[in-house]
């Protein structure tokens, strides 16, 4: 099982992993690439990952979510490679008997992804420049820009 994909995320397939006759509520979270506004003119983000660790970490994140919300079923995919503006970079789906547990499980997973997943992103602009998104401080120009 790999949670990473170089292709657009197939939401129907992801939903099929969690849905069932006992699910009364299903929560879907999509993280999408945005342009950054007129001043930024981002056309895509290039995602790179420490693949083996990212897969292992996503497995641990889902296990943690299951331990906390045992009645919820959760599935996740994260893109790697170039993701154009408006496409999803991550999809999380959570199904449970009741909506509250589905929402909470979904939120837990995206928050853990933000804190724990070894994935990095480089913003690609229309003028050909590229910038690493360094969440510890200011954006850092990429060497190949």
């Amino acid at each position, binding site marked *: 099982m790999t949670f990473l994909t170089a292709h657009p995320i197939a939401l129907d397939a992801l939903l099929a992993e969690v849905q069932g006759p006992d699910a009364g509520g299903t929560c879907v979270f999509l993280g999408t690439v945005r342009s950054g506004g007129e001043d930024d003119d981002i056309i895509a983000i290039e995602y790179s990952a420490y693949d083996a660790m990212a897969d292992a970490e996503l497995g641990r994140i889902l296990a943690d979510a299951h331990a906390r919300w045992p009645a919820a079923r959760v599935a996740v995919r994260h893109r790697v490679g170039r993701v154009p503006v408006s496409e999803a970079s991550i999809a999380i789906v959570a199904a449970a008997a009741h909506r509250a547990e589905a929402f909470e499980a979904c939120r837990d997973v*995206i928050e853990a992804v933000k804190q724990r997943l070894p*994935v990095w992103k480089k913003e690609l602009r229309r003028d050909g420049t590229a910038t690493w998104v360094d969440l510890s401080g200011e954006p*850092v120009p990429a060497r190949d820009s």
Partner: protein
Amino acid sequence: MATVHVRFFARYAELTGTDTTAVTVPVNATVSDVLHYVRDIIPGATTLPPRPLAALNLRQVQLTATVRDGDEVAFLPPLAGG
């Protein structure tokens, strides 16, 4: 002595000019010691932060974690998943 495989990702791979190397360190060396050895053999590694995020065998660890022969250590730029 222990041979440790070292990996760099994203911006750190650009700074070091490589995405992988190996170092031989004394028994009971720490991840911090591994970083010290890396700085000795890769000039670009001197530009890495003094205390970067690190992983040992696919799990985040503190720089004080002890390494063993055959381990994989990775130095990770600030995480940006999602």
